[in-house]
């Protein structure tokens, strides 16, 4: 589904991603862990097409299409969804208006009929229920005055509404209380199926108890320096990152 080959990217002239290789198939869940500043959010933003990040080398194919040539809205319409580490506030626009606009754009792109307002509202209600999202949040302005946890839940709510094919979760678990973590995880699990894929960025193994990954990657200094199964996350939690760095240094992988 997603093939990243030798991806290099700069932010303000400084190289942050230094050759990422990653293959994600439909039905898989991948987790990326790594110390602060290692480039996890950068990777997520580059995949989503944020123009503040400049790709200097490499290729990214999504369902066989070279997405690096697409603008961010086209990537979104193709089915790439980024749950932001820091969701943005938009005053004066209700969540409902925002989602209706987004959903219709995506439907139009795919040549599918738009939802009627009734269908749309029913869908919003159903998805909000899954996440235990207070319905008043739907008519409130996008993320304005939302608590940190509500913002994160709102990201997952949007994901359920828009039904993307590939989801990037950038630290969606940070700032969530234990109950919210379970609810959000179950939202992701309800969404998961054999046709879509998830890339989870997290610092905490705990999330991976709920969203079970097929692969765990360690990102360090702009490169993936280790890949393992879900037990790797436990090991990292236990021992930190130093041993992985040392190991990588030995194999000249850094």
């Amino acid at each position, binding site marked *: 589904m997603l093939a990243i080959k030798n991806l290099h990217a700069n932010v303000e002239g400084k190289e942050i991603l230094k050759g990422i290789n990653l293959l994600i198939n439909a039905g898989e869940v991948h987790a990326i862990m790594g110390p602060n500043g290692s480039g996890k959010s950068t990777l997520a933003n580059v995949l*989503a*097409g*944020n*123009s*503040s990040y400049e790709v200097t080398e490499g290729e990214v194919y999504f369902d066989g299409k070279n997405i690096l040539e697409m*603008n*961010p*809205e086209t990537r*979104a*319409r193709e089915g790439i*969804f*980024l749950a*932001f580490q820091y*969701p*943005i506030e*938009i*005053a*004066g*626009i*209700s969540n*409902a*208006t*925002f*989602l*209706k*606009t*987004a*959903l*219709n*754009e*995506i439907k139009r*792109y795919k040549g599918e009929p738009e939802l009627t*307002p*009734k269908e*749309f*509202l029913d869908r919003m*209600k159903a998805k909000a229920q899954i996440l235990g999202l207070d*319905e*008043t949040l*739907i*008519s409130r*302005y996008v993320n304005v005055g939302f608590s940190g946890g509500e913002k994160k839940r709102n990201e997952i709510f*949007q994901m359920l509404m*828009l039904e993307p094919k590939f989801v990037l979760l950038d630290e969606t678990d940070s700032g969530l209380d234990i109950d919210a973590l379970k609810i959000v995880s179950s939202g992701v699990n309800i969404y998961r199926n054999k046709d879509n894929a998830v890339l989870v960025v997290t610092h905490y193994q705990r999330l991976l108890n709920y969203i079970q990954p097929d692969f765990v990657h360690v990102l360090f200094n702009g490169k993936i320096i280790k890949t393992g199964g879900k037990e790797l996350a436990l090991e990292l939690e236990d021992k930190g990152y130093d041993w992985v760095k040392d190991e990588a240094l030995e194999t000249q992988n850094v």
Partner: protein
Amino acid sequence: MNEIKDNAAEELSENMKILDDVTTTEYKWGFVTDIDSETVKKGLNEEVIRFISKKKNEPDWMTEWRLKAFRYWQKMEEPKWPNVKYPQIDFQDISYFSAPKQKPKLESLDEVDPELLKTFEKLGIPLDEQKILSGVAVDAVFDSVSVATTFKETLKEKGIIFCPISEAIKDHPELIKKYLGSVVPYTDNFYATLNSAVFTDGSFVFIPKGVRCPMELSTYFRINSQETGQFERTLIVAEEGAYVSYLEGCTAPIRDNNQLHAAVVELVALDDAEIKYSTVQNWYPGDKEGKGGIYNFVTKRGACRGKNSKISWTQVETGSAITWKYPGCILQGDNSVGEFYSVAVTNNMQQADTGTKMIHIGKNTRSTVVSKGISAGKSNNSYRGLIRIGKNAEDARNFTQCDSMLMGDKCGANTFPYIEVENPTAKVEHEATTSKVGEDQIFYLNQRGISTEDAVNMIVNGFCKEVFNELPMEFAVEAQKLLAISLEGSVG
């Protein structure tokens, strides 16, 4: 809960329509109607004023009033303080009267020049019967003469007068004598004085004691003839306990030369009366290089004469090459309330110097000012607001919020707040913000499948929400469309 959802649904479909509607960047209303019109020779002198007055069959007292204004005007100088730049206007190079040549008095729409009706249709003015049923009474000002007034009969039953001011001068001289110039005296300022001398038409609204006007009253202005200045005069009087909501919409055809527009609007609210005055102004702003466009120098003022009276100005200004406009309220009556909600958009070479004046005289008077300025291109957008609290205005309150949004880095926004407080019990609050349309906001919307163009529209509409909320529904939709058209292509 159901209500929330229904509202949301309504809002959704509205917004979708708006976004879908955005297709053209050109000024949509830039057509000229070819009708036979009678235009007076360029220039201004007492003879011209007598001519205008005579053409309109005015009584002598009116002619005299105009002449007084003219004599006063000759001694005045054009104001230089606004933060706008334009070449010297040659007031002798303007024709001050233009009227479609036809029967002086029209009984029904059938008698109206079909070309005119076509123009109105293009403008989307609801003049035909079905549209009338939708509940808007329209007084259409085409260049300088009112050609059709609808719904008069229904209004008449309630004792409401809604007619061209020229008609009111003849039919209701006692009201005109009492109120015309009582809020904006003929000596008020350069443009208002000029207007007093040469005004050609406009609307008169009178809501008698205790009557709530059952429908929105609406006037559409359109400037058609080349190089005629448009000088409307509008007077709205709400007697004790009366209520009226009045809508003003404006368009003008594209011209290479700049056209002058200097209107005067006077509102009078007696005890417990309320007047809501909404404007959507989209006059031709000139082309990208700043050629052509309307010079809009307008004096709008409301007097809250009675206790507990209320006047609200809501304006959405997207057009005109230059806008110079400060709708204000004189809060004379105790507990009276003045409100000003404004969205001013400037793009390309447009210049706007606009804001409000709230003059607190009575006790416990309150005013609210919400101004949203959006600048794009190389335009310049200034907010100028005066809050004056007189020495007898015990416990007066003002809250001013003044937000500017910049699109790109070639435009400018300025805020000039003037606050004069003579009573120590007064509370005056002023908040101002300036923001740029954020890349991170645009990216967030892009990431959900929304194009940059639509993202900008959404962000801007969100920014203006508080003001749009004050507009009647159809007007709010219109305003959002205009905003989208005005700003198309300014980011990305």
